[in-house]
């Protein structure tokens, strides 16, 4: 049994409320263990707190970061090395993540999500009766 919070490979899946013409990108992530649980970091440059939508439904964590166009309306794009677009990625949470205590921060375009380990996931001793 895999206890990791793993990306599901469903990044970029369609959302009903997303405009069809928008470019959707899969942000790079780091996941590492801390003493409290797992820490997830995702690069979301250009995303504000207002533009960030972080949802947990059932055992799925989905992040959607909306990016507003950086240039004024009358600006012409004269040289392009990257595509501007929203960020989306989803993850399956393992059973030992305490959903109610998930917290998140956004610092300099990096999202940090703390996925605390649930107390009930502590090892439980089962006594075996000897007949």
């Amino acid at each position, binding site marked *: 049994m895999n206890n*990791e*919070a*793993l*990306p599901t490979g469903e990044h970029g899946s369609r959302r009903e409320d997303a405009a069809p013409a928008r470019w959707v990108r899969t942000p*790079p*992530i*780091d*996941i*590492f*263990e*801390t003493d409290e649980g*797992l820490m997830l*970091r*995702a*690069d*979301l*440059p*250009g*995303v*504000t707190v207002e533009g960030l939508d972080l949802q947990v439904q059932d055992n799925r964590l989905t992040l959607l970061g909306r990016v507003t166009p*950086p*240039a*004024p309306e*009358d*600006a*012409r*794009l*004269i*040289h*392009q*090395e*990257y595509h*501007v677009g929203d960020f989306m990625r989803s993850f399956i949470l393992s059973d030992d993540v305490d959903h109610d205590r998930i917290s998140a921060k*956004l610092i*300099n*375009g*990096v999202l940090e999500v703390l996925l605390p380990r649930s107390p009930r996931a502590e090892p439980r001793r089962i006594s075996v009766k000897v007949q």
Partner: protein
Amino acid sequence: MKSVDMVFEGLRLGRPFPALNVFATDREYLITAELPGCEPETLDVQVANGELTLRGERSLHANIPEERFRRSERPSGPWERTISLPERIDEQNIRAEFTNGLLKLYLPKLPVAAARQIRVLDLNQSSVAASVADQNPQNQLSNVPSTPPSST
């Protein structure tokens, strides 16, 4: 386990970092770069001799042992990039903003100088040209067949 594939992806594909987009309006150019995890205090933007140099460092995994990583896709480490600026940039008034990991550089265009009329002199009719010709009798005589002075 740490995957280094993503870290070196840019290098492998020969893509310069950071990737830049350039916009233009009538008044200025706008250069944008996505730099998540960079801190504004450590961003170094320099302009000299028509070149713009950007330097910085992406977030390091400070104090996190490698064996704790389940996934490591985010690139990190120092970077530097230099680009040539377009002509007629007001280098004194370049502005830089860094918000939510997005760098915006505004480069105002210098106003187009008004056309200056330059008077063209007609040297054939100028007195200077005439006087030079007068003082140079050889030129005047060169096309004339030489006639021996009359002895009579």
